[in-house]
């Protein structure tokens, strides 16, 4: 299983762009990179998934360099409501289960 490392916490201010980087040095060829967001008292929610280069959706962008040993989740112009825990998961594409392991995540605090 590819292990991930991400900062435990980050602070930002409203309106700023936030970049959360995740390291996954032993990522395998078949592994995908997936990010989830979790608000207090709620289950995690899928944000974005990618394999290489850049993926963008209405919520975030995911940047993956050519060596795929890291990835960066970019949240444009954050608001107070983006305060949450963000999880980076790396795992093989054929089976979620034990292949996708949630670490402690990054606790993002957005300040006014």
């Amino acid at each position, binding site marked *: 299983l590819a292990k991930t490392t991400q900062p435990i916490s980050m602070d930002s201010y409203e309106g700023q762009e936030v970049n959360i980087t995740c390291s996954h040095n032993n990522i395998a060829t078949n592994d995908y990179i997936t990010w989830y967001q979790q608000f207090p*008292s*709620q*289950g995690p929610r*899928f944000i974005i998934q990618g394999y290489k280069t850049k993926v963008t959706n209405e919520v975030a962008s995911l940047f993956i360099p050519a060596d795929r040993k890291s990835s960066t989740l970019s949240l444009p112009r954050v608001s107070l409501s983006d305060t949450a825990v963000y999880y980076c998961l790396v795992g093989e594409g*054929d*089976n979620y289960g034990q292949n996708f*392991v*949630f670490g402690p995540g990054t606790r993002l605090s957005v300040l006014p």
Partner: protein
Amino acid sequence: EAGVAQSPRYKIIEKRQSVAFWCNPISGHATLYWYQQILGQGPKLLIQFQNNGVVDDSQLPKDRFSAERLKGVDSTLKIQPAKLEDSAVYLCASSLGSGGRSGELFFGEGSRLTVL
């Protein structure tokens, strides 16, 4: 589209008592997961079902935890007898398939268990 439903939302029991949690996944989702989330930690997979068969239960403490998914739809997670360290949020999730390539797990709001 209705999301993943879980009940109860909250449960307080004393140690050595039993408790059961129920989950109704999104209609048509073949794969169902139960996770345990202890305060301050990420969710930990307990068991994964594909339809009504168990795919992975390697981290389920089988001496006290059991889970079933009858008819490949609803699922129940039971703890008997409960220990203090079982205090956590129990999250149910479902997905259309089991592949990470397909994207996402859909989580319910969770059932918060407090064992006194």
